[in-house]
C-alpha cells in the first residue's frame, strides 16, 4: 500500500510494538521500532526513513528534541518527523521551529494516527 519506510521511537514496549505491528499490516514497506535514542539514531542514519514518529520524553541520555535537531542538521533532513508527547503543547513550538511537521498528544487511536500519516506522506509512487 505504501512504498514508504517508517520509524517509531518510543521507550514503552507496550506502545511501540503494537504500533509497529499495526503499520506493517497496513502495508508500509519497512517499519522500524526503536526503544533507545542510540538505536534510533543509528537506524535513521542508515535507513533514512520517510517518516519518523517519536516520543519527546525518553528515559535516555538524549531526548526527542535533541534527536530531532540531529535529524534536521544532517542525519536525514528529508525525513518527515512527528513528535509525540503526553503533555500536549509542552515543547510544541520548539519542535515545530526545529522542523517537526506535527505534534501529537497521547493517547492516540492507531487508526486516527494512520489517517494523519496518510495525509502527511501521500503515496506518490502510486504503488
Amino acid at each position, binding site marked *: 500500500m505504501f512504498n514508504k519506510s517508517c520509524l517509531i521511537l518510543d521507550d*514503552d514496549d*507496550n*506502545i511501540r510494538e*503494537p*504500533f509497529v*505491528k*499495526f503499520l506493517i*499490516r497496513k502495508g508500509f514497506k519497512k517499519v522500524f521500532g526503536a526503544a533507545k535514542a542510540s538505536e534510533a539514531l543509528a537506524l535513521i542514519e542508515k535507513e533514512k526513513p520517510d517518516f519518523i514518529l517519536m516520543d519527546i520524553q525518553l528515559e535516555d541520555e538524549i531526548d526527542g528534541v535533541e534527536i530531532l535537531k540531529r535529524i534536521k542538521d544532517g542525519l536525514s533532513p528529508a525525513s518527515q518527523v512527528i513528535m509525540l508527547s*503526553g*503533555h500536549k503543547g509542552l515543547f510544541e513550538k520548539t519542535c515545530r521551529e526545529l522542523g517537526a511537521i506535527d505534534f501529537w498528544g*497521547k*493517547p*492516540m*487511536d*492507531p*487508526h486516527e494516527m494512520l489517517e494523519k500519516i496518510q495525509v502527511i506522506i501521500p503515496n506518490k509512487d502510486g504503488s
Partner: protein
Amino acid sequence: MTTFQDLMHDLGGEYTKLLMGSVVIKEDMDFLVQDGHIKASESELKETVSYARNVLLRVKQYMVSAFGFLTLVKPLIDEKVGPNNALFTLKAKNDEISRLAEETIKSLTDLPSIEIVKTASENIQKIIALSKEAEKIFFTVKPALYEKIGQKTEVAFGNGFKVLILDDQKDICDYLSNFLKKKGFRVEIATTANEAIGLAKSMIPQIALLDIKLDNPSTTGIDVLKHIRIYQPGCRCFMITLVDDKEILKKCLDLGAIGALTKPFNVDEIKNSLFKIVMEILNAAE
C-alpha cells in the same frame, strides 16, 4: 516528589497502551476469519491467540494501575474540588474493561472455534469503545482538575495505609512518623521488639519498617520480621539498616523482607520505596 500531574500523566499513558494493544489484536482476530471460516494454519492460529491473550493480560494490568492512580488522586480531588462523579464513571468503565478482558482470556483456547474468535473480536471491540469513552472522560476532567488543583501539587499517596515503625531511637521513629503522616499514612511507633510484635497484632499494619539492630541485643528487628511473616504474611516488611549490613540484609530478604532503607536516610529513597509499595498493595487488592 509524586505530583498530581505525574499521576494523571501515568493514568493517560495507561489508556494509550490499552488502545494500541486492543486495536492490533482486534485486527488479528478479524484477519483470522474470512468467509465464515478460520483461514489460518494451526500454528498461525496458536500464535495469534497467544499474542491476544498476552495483550489482554496487559490490558487487565493497565486497568489495575489506572485504578491505583485514581485511588491516589481521588482524596486530593475530593479535598480541593469536592466529590467528582466523573471519577466514578471512569472507575466503572475501567472495571468493565477489566471484566471483558478477563472473560475473553478465559474463552480463548489454543485452537478456538470460529464462534469463540468472533466473540473475542466483539469483546475486544467493546473494550476499544469503552476505553475511548473512558479516555474522553479523563481528558475532559483532566484540564479542569489541573486548573483547580495545580499541576505541581504533591499527592499524599499513603492512602491511609497503616505503617508500623520499629526503631530503638525515638527521634528516628518520630522523624519517620512525621514524614509518613504528611504523606497520608497512619503510623504507629515501637521502640522495642516486644512492643512492635504487640502492635503488629493490634493494628495489623500493611507496611512495617523494622530496624535490624536494637538496643536490647536479645531481640532484633529480624525477630519481628519472622513474627510478622508468620502471622501477617500480607504485611510488606522493609528493614532499616546501616549501609554496611549487607550480609544481615541478605538474611532478611531471604526471610521475606522486600527491601531496606539505609541510614542515614535519603528522603527521596524512602518516598519512592513507599510509593512503589502502595501501588503494589493497591494492585494486589484488585
